[in-house]
């Protein structure tokens, strides 16, 4: 884990003081609501339907046990005792009072946390693969570079008033677990022919009203140039991005309008000025960042002995067997496993955790791991370093707190934004739709039979629920004041990312579960033995699904 030094600590404390002063000026009428708006947004404070919402940054989704305990404490003391983990690895509180927010920020600062730039037209929290550092298929750990980007982007004086928000994601693995193709800049750590690692830079991806898969601007950027190159991209965007229409202000629109080659030429021109300048990373700076993310002191374990223990447990316990198969992932270290905690139990809003659950997870991370927790953009939590021999005991404890639903990567592991229950932007509710689908598909064996399936729900075009890149996407739309849902198929967020195609006219909330059932039955009828949903869709296209769904009407 990164640990703040005096510089980092001083800066976040100064930020708390600054925001306290801004709240006072606003309360005294010295700042208009319009003037206060971007100031509070750059501290993660939104106004929602019924209350303020505070979005707390969890840089690249990594938390220490004491930080998670602090989040629990804050949610209990200043909110209603729960928090929501978002698709950008942040945590949101739904009911804070404005006058408490400076105190909340001070509490966060006491555990090296903040809410800086979690909203507003600035560089947002940098997200990463939630398995960074423990994945077996990793070229290099993304977190040191994320921390370097975090520091560079924090209070960047030039880029705090961009045309629109700006999101960066980094992935260092063969498998993309950070949705890097649908970010304003996606960064993939790659290795070149000479065995050196560097970055593939992909600007201009994004979801929202105009979903776009990012294009590549640079296939291999040597490490030392990371910040100067990012700065060149941001500088071009800051000057040329559209400011006349907020729906056309994201970098994806600029890249598309210019064309990737013209955009690259412009960036390179800007980069000439910056390249090899003082922002060029030094070996020491990279080594320093990496020093915080060294592997913990793993024990030398006998992997086959651990596997044998698990096999015995599995033989007599089908519930454990299911969980083991689906909620644990291969770890780079023999004898260890990565455990995903499902925050997708039917009856609870996807991504929500109570203060008690957060505290329990913090305890488990210390008892069974090295006191570290990850947040995934799938809105689940991850315990990254668990001894295989401890898995049965951990499973029992997770079952007791409701985080052991064995559905990771399957239909009911739904990504879902807070939607119309909370959000003032939403056209429609999304949480009840997720719940209705989870209830409709309560037969876990059928869910397993369907294979890997991403079902993503957004309550509006802003696409916080990533509906465009769900194998099945559901989008809330407003039809003459009524809530309807548009279904799309064939989206994907991996390295072969694709955008979903709209099935047809939208449905009422009550119809959605049966529509999904028909879509899935169509897939089951058409699939070959080896195919998952996405494969079948890519082979047969939209038509067969369309015919089956709309024939009912």
């Amino acid at each position, binding site marked *: 884990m990164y640990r703040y030094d005096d510089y980092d600590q001083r*800066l976040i404390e100064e930020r708390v*003081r600054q925001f306290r002063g801004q709240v006072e000026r606003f309360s005294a009428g010295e700042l208009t609501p319009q*003037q206060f708006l971007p100031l509070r947004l750059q501290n993660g404070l939104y106004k929602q339907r019924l209350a303020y919402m505070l979005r707390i940054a969890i840089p690249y989704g990594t938390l220490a046990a004491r930080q998670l305990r602090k989040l629990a404490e804050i949610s209990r003391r200043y909110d209603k005792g729960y928090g929501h983990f978002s698709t950008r690895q942040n945590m949101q509180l739904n009911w804070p009072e404005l006058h408490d927010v400076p105190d909340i920020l001070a509490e966060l600062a006491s555990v090296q946390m903040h809410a800086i730039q979690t909203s507003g037209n600035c560089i947002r929290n940098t997200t990463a693969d939630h398995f960074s550092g423990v994945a077996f298929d990793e070229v290099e750990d993304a977190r040191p570079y994320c921390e370097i980007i975090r520091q560079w982007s924090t209070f960047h*004086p030039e880029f705090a008033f961009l045309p629109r928000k700006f999101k960066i994601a980094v992935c260092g693995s063969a498998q993309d677990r950070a949705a890097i193709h649908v970010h304003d800049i996606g960064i993939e750590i790659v290795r070149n022919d000479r065995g050196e690692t560097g970055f593939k830079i992909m600007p201009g991806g994004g979801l929202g009203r105009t979903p776009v898969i990012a294009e590549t601007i640079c296939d291999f950027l040597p490490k030392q140039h990371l910040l100067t190159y990012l700065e060149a991209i941001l500088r071009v965007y800051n000057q040329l991005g559209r400011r006349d229409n907020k729906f056309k202000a994201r970098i994806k629109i600029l890249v598309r309008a210019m064309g990737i080659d013209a955009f690259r030429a412009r960036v390179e021109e800007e980069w000439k*000025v910056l390249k090899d300048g003082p922002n060029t990373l030094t070996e020491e*700076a990279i080594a320093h960042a990496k020093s915080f993310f060294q592997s913990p002191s793993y024990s030398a374990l006998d992997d086959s002995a651990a596997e044998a223990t698990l096999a015995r447990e599995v033989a007599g316990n089908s519930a454990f067997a299911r969980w083991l198969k689906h909620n644990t992932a291969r770890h780079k270290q023999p004898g260890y496993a990565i455990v995903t905690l499902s925050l997708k139990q039917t009856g609870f809003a996807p991504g929500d955790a109570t203060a008690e659950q957060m505290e329990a997870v913090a305890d488990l991370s210390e008892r069974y791991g090295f006191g570290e927790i990850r947040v995934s953009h799938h809105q689940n939590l991850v315990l990254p370093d668990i001894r295989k021999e401890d898995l049965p005991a951990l499973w029992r404890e997770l079952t007791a707190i409701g985080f052991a639903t064995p559905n990771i990567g399957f239909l009911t592991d739904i990504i879902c934004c807070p939607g119309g229950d909370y959000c003032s932007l939403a056209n429609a509710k999304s949480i009840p739709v997720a719940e209705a689908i989870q209830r409709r598909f309560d037969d876990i064996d059928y869910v397993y039979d369907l294979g890997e399936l991403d079902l993503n729900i957004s309550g509006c075009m802003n696409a916080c629920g990533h509906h465009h890149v769900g194998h099945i996407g559901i989008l809330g739309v407003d039809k003459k004041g009524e809530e309807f849902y548009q279904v799309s198929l064939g989206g994907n967020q991996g390295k072969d990312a694709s955008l979903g195609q709209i099935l047809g006219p939208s449905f009422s909330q009550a119809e959605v579960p049966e529509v999904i059932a028909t879509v899935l039955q169509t897939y089951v009828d058409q699939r070959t033995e080896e195919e998952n949903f996405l494969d079948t869709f890519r082979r047969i296209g939209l038509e067969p699904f369309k015919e089956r769904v709309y024939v009912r009407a």
Partner: protein
Amino acid sequence: MSELNRPLIKNGAVVEDQWQVLREVPEQGLPEGAVIVPLAYWQEHRAELVQREAIGVWLASDQPPAALAEDLPKLAVVAIDFPAFTDGRGFSYGRALREHYRYQGEVRAIGQFLQDQLHYLRRCGFDAFALETADPFKALSSLEVFSEGYQASIDQPLPLFRRRAYI
């Protein structure tokens, strides 16, 4: 508001502004004294304007400083307009003036920027602020809200990662 006629934050203090910003040039021509003219007017009347003792030019937010590249040695002030505080193009223009064109004169912010932007503006190379949206005396403290910055900037050319003591 302040008691000064035309208060200007300059080099960390509030002073009386010696310059007149002409949003538009009056039909009867330029007034006496130090004036800051629109870019188009400068481009049209360059030859006569350089004869004046003191001349400055202001750039609208869609006029990058490249338009002045050749002229900068002749200008005592380049002002950059913020039509709305949310329009952040001027931050990049400030840096370009200082870093790219090595401009040494006054870089002044004019328009609708906020007190809360003073610190970032200063780090981007601005050294004068004609603040209209708040009392400049009360706003002075906002110049120094942060005692450090991570990035390379005009006031601190070395990023923090080059200044930290690594063990």
